[in-house]
């Protein structure tokens, strides 16, 4: 299994009372809640945390894109990736992902990724997403074109990466008389493409198609939902006459380790509850699910799901639902290995910082995870004594 540190780079010092007042951490919460001095401190801290992960032997570090929110401060994740390309040495740099439909010129995404591929020496893993519902409000892009623009932009980027230019591209949403990438990407035929999703069947089917075999990343889901998604991927692969490899499946999950189960739970509790109850809060279901963003059937089932889950999350329910991994190193590594056995994923994106989790606890989490959990995941069959001996 390969192990990554996935950072959301939240505005950890969010004024929770103000967030309550607007019932939102997205789009409508006024940006006077963002203190620039705090922002500068956080960017430097978070980049440092990702650099530390590289030094400690993580297989990769992950960033992603969100707009107008305290949930994550990376409207332009490639900027963070560019900084990391120079300051990290071995870790893969995963941009999970860029939101294709939100841009009017997908060629810029193709070009930026190609640049990053060179700057990192071929260490980037690219990710393509549609952007979440609220981002169609914050970016003024018509949500009814979301799917069409996603598929079309994806097609254009892949062609631009792999075909000799100049050539013409005439789509419904994007038209170019000259497609001729300078630079071409370093990795051949192109950098890996991973697709994060919360379990959309359409996405799973699309990823598993033999012409793509994209790594599918399950994010923020109760364990049974994640398991169902991976099983669906494997089933889809079998329909196409192949077995899905672990490399085609990744699981992203908030993870916290401390000296004992009790300490871990006590330290994580306020921050993870803030994360699920405050940072993932939208002013209305309409902002989460704008019109035409998903099919009517999917919209209805998502609405039902969101209404069902309106109660606030507690540490207890999050653990029970398999939304987070928390405990002593032994508890967490046993849990991960048991999950992997059942789910079959080959990539674990541990989200080692959430919401307001402060610097010292984050660093403790990263170091303890790296020394006491990660080696057992990276080297199957390794025994605790061997780790201690090699340390």
């Amino acid at each position: 299994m390969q192990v990554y540190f996935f950072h959301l780079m939240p505005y950890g010092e969010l004024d929770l009372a103000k967030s309550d007042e607007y019932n939102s951490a997205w789009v409508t919460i006024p940006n006077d809640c963002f203190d620039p001095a705090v922002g500068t401190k956080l960017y430097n801290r978070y980049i440092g945390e990702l650099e530390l992960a590289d030094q400690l032997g993580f297989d990769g570090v992950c960033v992603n894109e969100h707009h107008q929110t305290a949930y994550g401060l990376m409207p332009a994740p490639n900027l963070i990736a560019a900084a990391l390309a120079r300051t990290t040495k071995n870790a893969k740099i995963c941009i999970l992902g860029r939101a294709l439909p939100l841009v009017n010129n997908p060629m810029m995404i193709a070009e930026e990724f190609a640049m990053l591929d060179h700057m990192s020496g071929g260490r980037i893993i690219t990710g393509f997403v549609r952007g979440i519902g609220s981002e169609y409000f914050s970016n003024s892009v018509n949500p009814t074109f979301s799917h069409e623009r996603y598929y079309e932009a994806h097609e254009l980027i892949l062609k631009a990466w792999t075909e000799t230019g100049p050539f013409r591209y005439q789509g419904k949403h994007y038209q170019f008389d000259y497609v001729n990438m300078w630079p071409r990407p370093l990795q051949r035929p192109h950098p890996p493409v991973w697709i994060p999703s919360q379990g959309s069947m359409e996405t799973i089917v699309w990823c598993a198609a033999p012409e793509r075999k994209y790594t599918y990343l399950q994010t923020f889901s109760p364990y049974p939902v994640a398991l169902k998604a991976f099983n669906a991927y494997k089933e889809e692969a079998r329909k196409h006459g192949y077995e899905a490899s672990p490399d085609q499946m990744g699981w992203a999950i908030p993870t916290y380790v401390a000296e004992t189960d009790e300490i871990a739970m006590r330290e994580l509790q306020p921050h993870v509850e803030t994360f699920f109850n405050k940072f993932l809060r939208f002013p209305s279901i309409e902002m989460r699910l704008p019109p035409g963003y998903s099919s009517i059937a999917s919209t209805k089932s998502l609405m039902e799901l969101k209404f069902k889950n309106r109660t606030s999350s507690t540490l207890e329910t999050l653990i029970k639902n398999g939304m987070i991994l928390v405990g002593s190193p032994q508890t967490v590594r046993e849990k991960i290995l048991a999950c992997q056995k059942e789910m079959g994923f080959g990539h674990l994106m541990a989200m080692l910082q959430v919401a307001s989790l402060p610097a010292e606890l984050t660093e403790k989490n990263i170091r303890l995870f790296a020394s006491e959990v990660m080696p057992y995941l990276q080297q199957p069959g390794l025994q605790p004594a061997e780790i201690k001996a090699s340390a």
Partner: protein
Amino acid sequence: MREVVQDVRGTPVRMLEEGTGPTVLMLHGIDGPSADPLNVELAKTHRVIVPELPGFCHSGIPDWMMGISDAAYFVMDLMATLGEPKIHLAGHSIGGWIAAEIATRCTHDLASLTLLAPAGVMPVEAPQQDVFLLTGDAGVRQLFHDQKLADAELLRRADDLLDITLQNRAGLARLAWTPRMASVTLAQWLHRIDVPTLIAWGENDKILPFANHKTFTAEIAHAKFVGFPACGHAITHERGMEVARLMSALMGNAHSRSSGAK
């Protein structure tokens, strides 16, 4: 009103129809066609036709419909199937925008034009409520100034299918997401409208600000304008009777002034 289906160049279009007399083609607002007080009153003296706009109610969004211009041409194709040399064209909200788009292209087939709280122009002042953040019952209430009328509308809608509501929002979004409920260029061409025109607006419209009427009245100089105090966006419900009277007068004058009144 009864439901009929009209074929428009191979596309079946569901329409509500009622009454006899001069033909009024009424383009519905954000929530699709309904036998609202305006349509019921008009149908006593006119043949009122309320088509489902493409992308609304029972139809998915057609692949070819990229924006308001496509919707306008589609309704022009529909008009050609009605067998009437001159049509009284009217529209509310998004329907008003489409009606205005049609009239800026060509008024040859129009006897008159009625724009009721029409979308289509860049807002003169910021709307109080984003139409795409209207939520459930509270959202319906935002459309009304008179909350007793909102109660009645909520009762009427109690059995509406969520599918239809979601489809209506998706159809609306296809046409009106960016700029919200507006066109950058429509105002430029409103001067081309040369048929008798009525513009009416609720002074308490939270979706499309009352002040937007200034762009329409400035560019369509001959238009009659009526503002209704204590009236929200749901003008066809809240002022159905009055609007029907104003429209009847407009249409009567248009007829008495010769069929090609310009």
